[in-house]
């Protein structure tokens, strides 16, 4: 195939790619080398000053990054375990199978922000129903204002909201498995528990890796839940990277500095997710 206007047909796709991906990334890099802020708008050039500030003089960014790592890894592990359990349950022939399959998807179909508002009301220290019930036992935990407990609350809401997605991916995986190995395993003397450990789980490994990586990418963007539930508080105890970048860039309008944080964050995420995917593949697929 050698005709001159082939590039013409490439153009629409290329245009979209440049418009929504390549240009923004290059622009962020250029922006991160400028001192753009509300006093000083414009693309001046200040070298790597922003990066020096980020790496030497901003512990808050790194704290928020490690907090984010903790939150996303914890929530994804919980989502995987609960999602797998639920998917495994409705994969078998049980009564009202269809009903349960739909029921487990309901959280995913709700609007995250609105559900978080409802959760916030739920966990409200003096007016919420949770503490109303717990007060009967003489308890009134500070769900949203205790630094440690607030993280826990964020995890609960995230797990509730996104487990259905994990459930959906894993159920699709289970339903696509061949039936024969299970017949063979039963006859070969594997009890139901051993069947799960030696057949179901290894066969699900490729799908599990995919689901975990997808959820990790999603979970590390966590922003709306934190914004609505605690606004990063108390103090900065639930602040995550994206929330901190949002504050610096769109509240304090330090565009240049926020861009340098975004770009650093992007590089770290690409590297760490690649490593995680490799490690998971080695662990689960034994390759």
């Amino acid at each position: 195939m050698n005709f001159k206007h082939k590039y013409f047909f490439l153009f629409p796709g290329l245009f979209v790619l440049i418009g929504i991906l390549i240009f923004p990334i290059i622009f962020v890099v250029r922006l991160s080398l400028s001192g753009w802020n509300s006093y000083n708008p414009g693309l001046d050039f200040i070298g790597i000053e922003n990066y020096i500030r980020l790496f030497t003089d901003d512990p808050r960014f790194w704290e928020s990054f490690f907090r984010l790592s903790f939150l996303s890894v914890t929530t994804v592990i919980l989502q995987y375990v609960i999602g797998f359990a639920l998917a495994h349950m409705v994969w078998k022939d049980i009564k009202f199978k269809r009903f349960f399959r739909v029921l487990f998807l309901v959280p995913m179909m709700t609007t995250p922000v609105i559900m978080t508002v409802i959760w916030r009301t739920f966990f409200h220290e003096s007016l919420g129903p949770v503490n109303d019930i717990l007060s009967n036992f003489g308890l009134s935990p500070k769900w949203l204002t205790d630094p440690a407990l607030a993280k826990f609350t964020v995890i609960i809401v995230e797990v509730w909201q996104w487990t259905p997605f994990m459930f959906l991916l894993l159920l699709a995986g289970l339903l696509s498995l061949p039936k024969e190995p299970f017949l063979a395993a039963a006859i070969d003397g594997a009890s139901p528990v051993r069947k799960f450990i030696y057949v179901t789980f290894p066969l699900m490994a490729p799908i599990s890796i995919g689901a975990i990586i997808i959820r990790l990418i999603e979970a590390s963007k966590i922003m709306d839940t934190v914004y609505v539930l605690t606004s990063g508080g108390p103090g900065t105890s639930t602040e995550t990277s994206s929330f901190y970048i949002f504050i610096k860039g769109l509240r304090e309008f330090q565009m240049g500095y926020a861009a340098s944080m975004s770009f650093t964050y992007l590089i770290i995420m690409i590297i760490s997710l690649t490593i995680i995917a490799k490690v998971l593949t080695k662990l689960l697929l034994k390759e």
Partner: protein
Amino acid sequence: MNLIANNLTYKPSEEYHLNEVSFNFKEGNLYTILGRTLSGKTTLLKTIAGLLTPDSGAIEFDGKDFLKVPVWQRNVAMVYQQFINYPHLNVFENIAFPLRQRKIDNEEIKNKVMESLKSVGLVGYENRKIQELSGGQQQRVSLARSLVKNAKILLLDEPLVNLDYKLREQLREEFKSLFSKGLADETILIYSTTDPRETMELNGEVIVLDEGKVLQVGPAKEIFENPSSLKVAEISNDPPMNIIEAEISNEQIRFEGIEIKAPNHLSKLTDSGLKIGLRSSDIELNENGHEFEVELAEISGSETLLHLKRGTIKIIMSIEEVLNFKIHDKIKIDFKIDRAYAFAADGKLASSPFGGNNG
């Protein structure tokens, strides 16, 4: 240790998959279940394995109620017509799987697996992935897996049906030598097939199954010589036995303008509506014979199958050599009438050349 079934019935929908099946299998014997597709062979094997629970009836093994034992404790091995293995494990681990379900140390597992690899001729393949093997090799792996655990009951569900001709021949030979070795002493071997030839070659006790019902039980030779009914004759012959409606009187068999002197075992039959059964191999070409028209000629292997027609009757004959015939050729044939069977109007065997039900 006997495996005894009593009136097993399984009827998931309109049709019976098993209809009051009873048997008494003794250890150290080979049993062949012969039946066409959908006759209930697989259902029966699955019921024995514990993958299916019958609607009614009982299975007893070694004096215990087998239906109360869960599948994974039954100590049964099974080879399926599809090649079923574990796609995520290599050949060695596939075969080791049943052993890993018990507390057996690694050294012993290794020895047993290697021994079993040897018996199916797959030494050197232990680290291969299952997907890298051919169909025949995959089936050997599942056979090795079923042999390795020394199960008391070994079920083989049409294990050769999905293999190509050459491999089928080869594996069938291997089966025969495997079965004749020590294995057969304490194991109940149950082998299901649609192929009468396989049944005869394996030469075990045969159970003829049709629409979930047991039609006849007996040694292969007995089934071949004295099929109890038309249906059994049909199922246990490939190509199916020719059935000709005929009239017998004055020691003469008459059909379609042909008159043949009846042999001794047929001459005294007087019932009306008799059907004469004759194997395709019991018809021969003969210059002085009766004229038939060739409808179809097919060559299979070293055999020629001729579909013949005369008036309203159609028959199939097989010739042990490759010959060329054209459609609508007229040929002359003769019947080896002393090897003919007679079936009564209700389908029951009336008389056979081997003395069954002789009238």
